[in-house]
């Protein structure tokens, strides 16, 4: 019997590239991006990201990249050439799996046939299109630089260019929106037949223009938002979508593999200002400052905003907080093995939640939240964290 049949498997790795450029800022958005047109910054960014990727590639020889995600900002606005350069750099410096999921985010106003064909040729195979609403008035209110007709046109272009995995981003709980408006948005978008839909509740983030005028926005109350959420879950399920995360739905098992890494404890490396990583036991975030990022990479300075080594006990909390967002859920044996903590105290909380139809168990006994449970998941997770705090490590498994 041969002692070594093959090299040990490489560990999977996700890459996130933050592209911090937009045509204009949306009123609700607190992601880091700039509307600059200065070549110095745009070229500087491209050089810095590529250099950063080269540096990082050397540190990850035992990893195989199975997902790459270009988010922003607006990657499609940054343009095909830039994205292609970055992707090429990635391939040169990392071992990228042949079947890797490679996604870019696009806005309807910056999708062209040329861009799509170029990226398709570079191996991009998934597009996340920011549609948000089917109502032009609403899009205007949100500060989106496009109409719904543009969104539909963009969607068809993407499809025609050969992308077979398209995701559409939608928002609910918008100013003045009612349940019926939202239902219409869903119905309209479903006619496009996307593989994947994300539905996000509008959240008023500090420091955004919306935060300034919050009180006059006429936002739907929590009750209405809850109804909207449940309506989305119901509608999408009826159309063959599986809810695999609080805000994410897919057909044909086409989950966002990259995003799933965030929720199931996978490793990922982030590039570009404000990008985050969870790699080799450490979680870190880069500075939210393009110039500082460029200078830091060029001169070898500090680009970290925050770096933390996460102890096992804290990982146990993250396990609850993140996995319960998904339909993977949590499992007694898995939990006890991973963290050497007893599951029983958590089970008490979950049993109690089962009575309110907030939690349920799958055929294999894994605990998952129901849509009603997702809606109050903070409340459930904090109950679980409290129960976890009070538990002492297992002596034996």
């Amino acid at each position: 019997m041969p002692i070594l049949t093959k090299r040990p498997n490489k560990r999977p790795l996700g890459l996130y590239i933050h592209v911090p450029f937009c045509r204009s800022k949306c009123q609700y958005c607190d992601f880091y991006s700039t509307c600059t047109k200065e070549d110095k910054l745009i070229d500087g960014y491209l050089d810095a990201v590529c250099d950063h990727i080269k540096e990082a590639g050397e540190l990850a020889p035992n990893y195989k990249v199975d997902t790459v995600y270009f988010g922003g900002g607006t990657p499609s606005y940054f343009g095909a050439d830039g994205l292609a350069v970055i992707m090429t750099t990635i391939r040169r410096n990392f071992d990228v799996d042949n079947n890797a999921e490679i996604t870019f985010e696009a806005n309807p106003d910056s999708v062209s046939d040329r861009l799509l064909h170029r990226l398709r040729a570079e191996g991009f195979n998934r597009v996340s299109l920011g549609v948000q609403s089917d109502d032009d008035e609403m899009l205007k209110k949100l500060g989106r630089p496009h109409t719904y007709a543009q969104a539909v046109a963009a969607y068809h272009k993407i499809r025609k260019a050969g992308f077979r995995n398209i995701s559409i981003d939608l928002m609910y709980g918008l100013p003045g929106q009612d349940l019926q408006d939202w239902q219409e948005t869903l119905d309209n978008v479903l006619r496009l037949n996307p593989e994947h839909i994300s539905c996000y509740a509008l959240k008023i983030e500090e420091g955004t223009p919306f935060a300034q005028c919050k009180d006059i926005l006429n936002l739907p109350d929590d009750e209405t938002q809850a109804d909207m959420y449940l309506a989305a879950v119901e509608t999408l399920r009826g159309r063959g979508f599986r809810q695999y995360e609080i805000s994410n739905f897919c057909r044909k098992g086409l989950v966002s593999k990259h995003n799933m890494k965030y929720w199931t404890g996978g490793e990922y490396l982030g590039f570009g200002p404000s990008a985050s990583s969870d790699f080799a036991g450490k979680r870190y975030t880069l500075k939210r400052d393009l110039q500082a990022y460029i200078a830091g990479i060029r001169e070898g300075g500090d680009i970290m905003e925050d770096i933390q080594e996460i102890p096992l006990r804290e990982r146990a909390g993250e396990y609850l907080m993140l996995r319960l967002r998904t339909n993977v859920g949590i499992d007694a044996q898995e939990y006890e093995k991973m963290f050497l903590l007893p599951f029983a105290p958590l089970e008490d909380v979950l049993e109690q939640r089962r009575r309110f139809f907030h939690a349920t168990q799958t055929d294999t006994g894994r605990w998952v939240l129901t849509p009603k449970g997702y809606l109050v998941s903070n409340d459930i997770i904090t109950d679980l964290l409290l129960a976890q705090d009070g538990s002492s490590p297992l002596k034996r498994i």
Partner: protein
Amino acid sequence: MTELSKIRNFSIIAHIDHGKSTLADRLLESCNAIDQRIRAEQLLDSMELERERGITIKATAVTLHYTADDGETYALNLIDTPGHVDFNYEVSRSLAACEGAVLVVDASQGVEAQTLANTYLAIDAGLEVLPVINKIDLPSARPAEVKAEVEDIIGIPAEDAPEISAKNGINIHSVLEMIVKDVPAPTGDREAPLQALIFDSQYDSYRGVIVYTRIKQGTVKPGMDIKMMATGAVYKVVEVGTMTPTGLCPLDELGAGEVGYITASIKTVADTQVGDTITTVENPASEPLPGYRAVQPMVFSGVYPADGAKYQDLRDALEKLKLNDASMSYEMESSIALGFGFRCGFLGLLHMEIIQERLEREYNLDLITTAPNVVYRVTKTNGEVMMVYTPLDYPDPMEIQLAEEPYAKVNLIAPQEYVGNIMDLCQQRRGEFKDMVYLDASRVELHYEMPLNEIIYDFFDALKSRTRGYGSLDYELIGYRPSKLVKLDILLNGDIVDALSFILFADNAYPRARKICEKLKENIPRAQFEIPVQAAIGGKIIARETIKALRKDVLAKCYGGDITRKKKLLEKQKEGKKRMRTFGTVSVPSEAFMAVLKLDED
């Protein structure tokens, strides 16, 4: 012993913020009593809390040696008095240790309610009152008018009152000369049987209780057996001496007319009640000095550890505080809702807040405090008369023949444009208008008789807000009067939360019940199920609110960069849950208890 003619015993009285403590500091400095290097602002207010709040909580005394313009050196004993209505009795005992009082009046604000109240206390104690006009450096100062006010309103000559600025050290010398010239020297027979007035005491872990005293008659020396005439406690004197700004200075003896301290290995301040008379066992005085009164807490409230496991810590903390504060009382109490805790008695709300703050700060405790209440007197149908200290003990309405509540005489002073507002407020608080006096062209003093209970609930805050801060208040207990009282119970999800029950005037029950239900609704987080919040009197529901079931509490987005941030958010939410008390099925944060205490009337 200092010759009687070379002693001056005086105190400084003032309305809050008129500069009493600052003047005291300047007097100390002028007598070189303070080493400049160790000088902290307002030396006499030594408690951290005192300095922060700008009020004097405990009385202190200090002896200064001042060489006057006549070339003689005098021992000036300055007795600093507490500055709040809650501590009126303590003030009166400190004044009884003096022959004179320096009355500090703010040159722009003029005479205020406490200026008057304290002056009357001083005049009642037979003191020579010497006005001083302070803060003359302020642009708004109007010393001439204020002097006229003092003469008109208080009726004491103020023509020659020194015009000073304690803050800037202007004219401090003239205050010292005035004290020497106008405060009468003490009298007394140093051979007579000992009569020493206790005006304060303080617990020291090395010496036991340090008794601050004014010797009225006779002489006290180490080794003497002394007796507290009211409490009957007997001790052997270890040390006597005077207080200096830098510490205690032992002497061979203290004689009539002098102010100083006595230590006698006394274990608790409960044995050295303020106002009591010390005499000797061997040659006792025939009677105690007049004016002693056992201190009665007026306001009671349940004090519980927010974390039930900290009960013992709370007990230890109260025990230690009590060593130094005889006016606070505590007794074990248990509530179904809050578990074990204490029913504590306080002189007033300020006193209550101070004790709570000290417990939380100095002993690092997280507390839940129940609504404060006064002591009610209930005559039962079987003739038994009981004093009710806690709503938990309030008898069933069927058993009550007569319920009575304590009343207070309230003096309010404010600019005349606020008279309407004050009258409205007092009427709402069941005040009985007595009379109204114009103090001068623009200010009015109103007299009311009002249930004490109405005063302890944010009355002072309400007064301040209705008079834009210009109104001032002083009150004094005048006895019990029959009243229509009811006990209001609060039910959460159908269960009575005993810690939220309280006694109140029947006619106020409906509006207050509604308000409390609203407040609780705001402060109790939504749960998985609907929670009815009800208020009831004797089983009859009179108000109801519903806390709807929690439907939405979710982080819609959570990707790579959000994890750290959202983890913190959940961590915070979790910590909030930790601080909640669970009653049956309902979790109540300690803030909900606080919210019920502060029912804004507007």
